[in-house]
């Protein structure tokens, strides 16, 4: 069953095109990653899905209903965490959580207490005294304490420390286990890799890649820098190795994870002096996309 579906969704602000013919499909029970750099259109897309912005063209449906016309009805089944959580400085965190849960519909009191403890949030404090991370926690507790069918999360882990990031990921995985759907916008690839079943990448308002993690295998390429005693020549002819650069004795390249073992075995024969490896950054991905290397265009 399809939970979110957009068809050629377009949003213009005056002359600026924020979303250009965006097609998305999120199925029930999956965690869907929506990744892209700042200003790519992630937040705009989410606001259209929430019926806060009106689409200029195309269609956006949630639970099969028009996102703009049936906003209130749809929202009874949605929990939302915005990217930048601005709260009322004179209300306490506890009050805001209760308000948010109540305005959506039903909530779970025990679940709320459990989450407050898990996220280690002092709910008696006024929101004006909260740090960015604590404001984020308020929104997260309110979202996960609701009994929603779909969670729409806009860069929810920005400002969380690693420990809290862990708690957040647990919440997402738990929701998936219960058959809930999650639409997760992010620019942290590692988080997306860990949580998401399927992914779309958006850049300048256009979806440039879409598919399951397996389909986007090249997303998980690793960048390697290696210094060896003996010269290495086999890389050019090896399948799954890209972007080779040499600088004296140091070679840098990107490699698909499937062939990493083989490559390392052969590299060690050349007597490794120094080795650095690094997961690919989102930037790598876009850069490659620009150049048209390794699929995409």
């Amino acid at each position, binding site marked *: 069953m399809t939970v979110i579906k957009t068809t050629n969704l377009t949003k213009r602000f005056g002359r600026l095109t924020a979303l250009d013919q965006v097609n998305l499909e999120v199925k029930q029970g999956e965690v869907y990653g929506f990744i892209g750099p700042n200003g790519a259109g992630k937040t705009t897309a989410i606001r259209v899905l929430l019926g806060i912005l009106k689409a200029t063209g195309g269609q956006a449906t949630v639970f099969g209903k028009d996102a703009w016309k049936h906003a209130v009805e749809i929202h009874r089944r*949605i929990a939302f965490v915005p990217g930048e959580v601005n709260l009322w400085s004179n209300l*306490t965190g506890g009050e805001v959580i209760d308000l948010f849960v109540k*305005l959506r519909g039903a909530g779970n009191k025990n679940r709320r207490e459990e989450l407050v403890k898990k996220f280690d949030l002092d709910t*008696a404090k006024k929101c004006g005294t909260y740090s960015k991370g604590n404001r984020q926690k308020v929104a997260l507790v309110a979202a996960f304490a609701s009994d929603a069918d779909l969670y729409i999360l806009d860069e929810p882990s920005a400002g969380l420390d690693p420990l809290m990031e862990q708690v957040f990921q647990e919440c997402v995985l738990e929701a998936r286990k219960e058959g809930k759907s999650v639409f997760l916008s992010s620019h942290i690839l590692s988080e997306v890799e860990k949580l998401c079943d399927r992914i779309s990448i958006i850049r300048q308002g256009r979806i440039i890649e879409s598919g399951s993690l397996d389909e986007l295998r090249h997303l998980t390429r690793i960048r390697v820098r290696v210094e060896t005693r003996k010269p290495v020549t086999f890389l050019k002819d090896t399948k799954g190795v890209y972007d080779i650069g040499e600088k004296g004795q140091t070679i840098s390249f990107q490699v698909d994870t499937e062939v990493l073992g083989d490559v390392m075995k052969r590299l060690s024969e050349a007597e490794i002096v120094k080795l650095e490896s690094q997961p690919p950054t989102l930037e790598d991905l876009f850069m490659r996309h620009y150049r048209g290397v390794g699929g995409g265009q």
Partner: protein
Amino acid sequence: MFQQLNHNMGSYARFILRRDRFRLPVWVISLVLLTVVTAMSYTLLAPTEQDRAMMAATVANPAVTAMFGPGWGLDNYHFGAIMGHQMLLFTALLVAVMSILLTVRHTRGDEESGRIEMIRSLPVGRLTILSSTALVMFGANLVLALLTAFGLFVLGLEGIDWHGSLLYGASLGATGFLFAAVTGLFAQLSDNSRGTMGYSFAFLGLAYLVRGIGDVGNETLSWFSPLGWIVRTQVYVNNYWGPFLLITGAAIAFFALALYLNSLRDLGAGFIPAKPGRKTASPLLLSPLGLAFRLQRGTIIGWAVAMFLLGASYGSVLGDLDSYLESMEIIRDVLIVAEGFSLTEQFIPMLMAVMAMSAAIPVLLMILKVRAEESRNRMEHLLARAVSRTSILGSYMLLSVLAGFVMMLAAILGMWSAGAATMEAPLALSTISNAGMTYLPALWVMSGIGALMVGLLPRAVSFTWFYLGYSFFVVYLGALLQLPVWMARLSPFGHVPKLPVEEANFAVYTILAFIALVLTVIGFGSYNRRDIAG
């Protein structure tokens, strides 16, 4: 040791001045101008000695004493005595407000936002922030004192001599410095800026209240309030410097105590632990209307109190108004000439128009809050949940309309109760009430314009303030400046029947209500159709 604790005080004070290079001059110059312009306006209001004697008779009543302090030199009520009686305490309150706001901003406000942490990591002493703030506030109040004294003196009015002007200015400056010190102290006690501001304003309010009760009933009680001290300088009449020294001494003592406490505590800590707030929300908060009310509760209460005081200050002089107004040509020009009504009754529509247009300020604040919330990205929290746009705008609209009623009610009650306390034959509550409530349909139109702007032209909501300013200009000054009638007709307030002199006209009320309704419907329609920014 002292130098160590206050290292770089001069540079930091200069930094404060740099940050406040507009804020501070605007405050000081506005306050000085207020004093000077008011002093000048009395020469128009009561040009002759006879006028002023009449005025003295008007203000010699307990309501005025409670509000402005006891009148000294009522038997020779020259301009100096008038200023000391009617303006000194009022201006001192404003100076205190300036000092409180600026001091909170530079002490606890900066500390809470984490800016002081950055400053303190530099070679800056532990007490530098507070001592520099004290230095700046001393300087600001000194400049205010001197400019006020000079500004008053050069007017060359009867009774306003150099000695009195110097004491007048000095008393204001000392009061300002005292409240800066009090705020500096509360900034050590409370660990957040809201609390600091709350305690400081509570102290100011209490000082005003204690003095008011003391001045009317028990003189000794007034000596417990710093605001009781300032009125006892008997400026321009007896020119006592004792109270001034008392205020200055208290200010220094408060600052010394604040500095001592500051040297004891950790950065970010306070001596009064912050009262933990509610861990869960009260059921009253849990709806769009509940939230809208909660966010604006303070505004509503504050404005209602202000409207009551405004009403009371007009009401307190109603007593001897007839004889007084009789003598004033300028007022007679703007009154509606009507047979069979006392001058006081004819004066009421003008007072009510002023109060209704003042009430329009909170009325507009309530509805324009929708836009303010949107600009701060807080509307999306509600709109992303099962809340319709109609229910959001409707909540604020309801508050706006109710606020109009509450404000007029407060003004009416203020005027009636003060009038009843001072008049021999008080006006009936129903007379005053009708004269005030006749303006409600005009306030509905203002709410409607607010809803229209929020829905249709959210970027131009400030236009509504211009429109209110225009209304004030044409309705209040229109008759005086003999502006053409159509100019006043462009404002809803220009259409309202002027009770009790004119008859209530239900056709006019209906038309105004209908206009308000149309504006509101268009506003709601557009709000439901447009993009929300956040």
